[in-house]
Structure formats: C-alpha cells, structure tokens
C-alpha cells in the first residue's frame, strides 16, 4: 500500500520527518502515536500525496508519489479514505452531501448509492443531523461525519488522524469497532492517536502494530503497552 524509503520532509529548512523507512502491508492495522507536534499529520499528508517528501522515496499503491501528475494524485486519493484532523468539510453543504462528496466528485453518486449513504449515516448516528450544515454540528458529530466520508468510497486504505479526539468513550469504541471490522474485511488501516486506551482496546480485536513518532523518526513501540 504505502512504502517509504528513507523519506524526509520539512516545511522549511528544519526537517520534521527524517529517514523514515516503513511499509504498510495490505490488510495491516497500524497506530501512530507521538507527542503533539511530532509530525503525525505531516506523515499522513505524505501518505495521501498532499505533501511530497523532500528526499527519499514514497510509494503509494506502487506509484512513486514524487512523480505523480495531478490527475493521478486525484485518482489515488479516491482509493484512500482520510479522516482529517480538522475534518475539512464544505460549510455551505448539508452534512449528507459532505459525506457523499467523494462520490459526487468522482461521478459515482446517484440513486444507487442513496441507500448505502443513508445506511452509513445511520451507522455513525447522524440520521437526525443529515441536513444540518457542518458548523451546526458538535465536534464529535463532525468527526463521525468525517469517518463516514472517509469510508463512503470503500477505499483500500484508511488513514485516520485523531478520529476519536472529540467523542466520548462509547462512541470511540464504536468508531474503533467499525475500523476493526473494515480491517477484517481486508482494508489497510492507520490511526494517528494519543489515546492509549483506544490502542489497548484495539489490540483485543485486531493485530495492530504501534508506531511511535518522535524527534522526526519512527520506531516500533509495543513493549510499553
């Protein structure tokens, strides 16, 4: 799915990430932890091509991310479901259409998808709020909507940046449950989170590897859990 060889990235002169070598195998389940500001979001941006590594190689679905043209980047993103840390909704559209947005922009929306869409909205508990606009939603509601949008396209790879940051423990577990089920169906999942309890809860359900990002480098963490 994702292959990094000695990848490095910095917004300015100082590198945020350096010498990252890592492979996300198909069907794997990863957690990414690390202190705030360590570069977790930056790492995810490299994975879905919003940022390009300043050195080293990042391979997404077998394609070199550095040489992808804009159309290929778009096509590649259609195969990756991303839960963004700050959600990234269109505030003038109702939540239902925001969730359907990946379908709309790839020309796959239509009556055939409506039932699917409604089922997913019900699953994340937003049926009553489907016609509200994103600014009218609570932080947790927005995060559930963001997860729904990330999986509406049935992606091969799911990247979630703090997907449970604003929801209560019960909802966190439900969302985790959904991600675990998707993983059991063969999807590759990577979750960036601070929530150690969530990681422990996941370990009971799936085989998850925990990566720790600190000082610009990634290391396997596991023993401490």
């Amino acid at each position, binding site marked *: 799915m994702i292959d990094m060889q000695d990848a490095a990235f910095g917004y300015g002169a100082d590198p945020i990430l350096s010498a990252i070598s890592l492979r996300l195998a198909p069907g794997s389940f990863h957690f990414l932890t690390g202190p705030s500001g360590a570069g977790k979001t930056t790492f995810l941006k490299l994975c879905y*091509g*919003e*940022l*390009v590594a300043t050195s080293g190689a990042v391979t997404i679905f077998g394609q070199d991310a550095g040489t992808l043209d*804009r*159309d290929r*980047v*778009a*096509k*590649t*993103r*259609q195969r990756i479901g*991303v839960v*963004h840390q700050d959600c*990234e*909704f*269109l505030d*003038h*559209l109702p939540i239902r*259409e925001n969730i359907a*947005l*990946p379908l*709309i*922009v*790839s*020309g796959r*929306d239509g009556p055939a998808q409506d039932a699917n869409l409604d089922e997913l909205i019900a699953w994340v508990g937003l049926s009553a709020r489907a016609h509200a606009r994103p600014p009218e939603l609570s932080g947790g509601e927005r995060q559930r909507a963001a997860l729904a*949008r990330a999986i509406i*396209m049935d992606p091969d790879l799911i990247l979630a940046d703090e997907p449970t940051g604003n929801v209560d423990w019960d909802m966190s577990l439900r969302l985790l449950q959904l991600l675990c089920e998707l993983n059991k169906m063969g999807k590759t999942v990577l979750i960036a989170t601070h929530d150690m309890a969530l990681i422990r809860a996941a370990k009971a359900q799936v085989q998850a590897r925990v990566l720790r990002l600190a000082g610009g480098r990634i290391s396997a963490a596991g023993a401490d859990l």
Partner: protein
Amino acid sequence: MSFVSDTLDLLRGETKADRVVPRSGQAAKLTVAVSGAMAFLAVFALALSLASGRLADRWSAALAQSSTIRLSAPAAEMEAQTWAVLTVLEQTPGVDSARALSDDEQRALLEPWFGPDLPVADLPVPRLIEIIETPEGYDATGLRQRLAAEAPGAVLDDHTRWRRPLVAAADRLRLLGWLSMALILASTAAMITLAAQAALASNQQVIRVMRLVGARDVYIARAFVRRFTRRAITGAAAGAAIGMLAVALLPRAAEEGGFLTGLGFQGAGWLLPLVIPLLAGVTAFWATRIAAFRTLGGLR
C-alpha cells in the same frame, strides 16, 4: 475530448457538481453586466462595419464605371472625333476599356426627360463615351490635354472621382469597426478572467476540500467554466438584444439617406448580431478554463 464533453455539459441543467462550488454573487453580477454592456457596444461596432462596408462597395462600384466623355461636334465630324477619342483612350494608361454608347442607350438615358419618341439621330445631342478604369485609374489632367488636341469637342466628365477618398475612408471605417469588435472581445476576455480569478480565490477552501476527496482538476474547473460561460451568454444575449432594438429604432431615410441612416442591418444581416452571445460564451469558456487551470496548478 474534455472540451467536447464540457460543451455538452453546458447544455445540461444545474448539476450536483455546480452546487459544490458556492455561488459568488459579486463576480456573477459583474460578469452578466459587463457582458451585456460589451455585447451592446459590439452590436454598434458590427453595424458600423457593415454599413461602411456597404458604402465602400457601392461607391467603388460606382467609381469603376463612372467616367464619361461628352463629345459635341458637328454631325459631319462626329464619327471622326469619336474614333479620335477612342484611339486616345486606347493609348491612355489606366483606362481598362472605353466604348461609345449606342443611339438606343442614349435614348434610354434621355427618355425620362424627353419621352420615348425622341429622334436622337436628328438632334444635336452630344455623344457619350463610357470609360471603365483600371483600379489604379488614369491621369485625368493628361487625358484632358490630349483630348483637347485630338478631339476639341470632347469633355471629360469625371465628377465621381471625388468619391475616391470617400471610398478609402469608408474602407478605413469598416476596418475600425472590426478592430473595435476585436477590442471588445479582448476586454470581455480580460474582465471574465479577472472575475473568474476572484471567484477561484474566494473559493480556495472549497477547491482544497474537493482536491482532498479526489476531485480532478477538470471537474473543479468545469464548475467554474459552466457558471461563467452561462453568465456571459445571458448577459451578452440581453445586451445584443437591446443593441439590435436600438439599431432597429434608428430613424429611417430613403436609400440615398446617407451614412447615418444607413447604420443598420439589412436582411440576413440581422442574424449577425446573434453571433455575439455565442462569441461571448466561447470567450468566457476559454478565459475561465485557462484561469482555473492556472489557479489549480498552484495547489497540490
């Protein structure tokens, strides 16, 4: 390929894709208003071009067969002097051909004044010799001098020559009309580019989110292109309609009424202004498309 599908796309109604990009009121109103004003101006530039073109054509047609030589001579010398004049003309550079009008033709010319039974042959009517010039024309002063020597009864009547500079002026006016059209078109393109850039800039976040969920550039560009093309066509159609109405309501005068009253469309010419909204649409289409791809190229 995407150009064709984009064009077909314009014919469809508002799609979901259109709603993804929020309406931008300011740029929209500006586009409609300026397209309208430009189309209004274009109608007049077009009318000016067509009218001065017609004038130039008519006058230069008249010029081509304008000169005549009036030959008054005693009946006995008439034939000889006619030959003398024709010989002189034959040798004059700038004269394409020359011929003496027949009695029948002369009678036809005089008929309105003297009735059909005029015995031309018995009257001391001057003989008329028609000169067809080459485009370069002949030297009238030189010809006059030679005629005076060879055929003293001949008078060169080149009263329509004064129109020559007028034809040049009319031709220039036609050119200026087309130039105005081109300038109007270029201004429209510039204005729509600016309006499109403003709309793109104010939708940065929308474009970003669309890119994040996997929208291709053509998809995003299309939402803007459709909108601006429609606005330009709508505005231009209204402007052209008002312009045509204004032209139609110009006071009419007789055919010879001159230049000002001739400023209008004739027959199928009325269909020409209908091209203006189409032209505005094509201009808006490309201006927006280029602006959109340039903006999108700057984002990841």
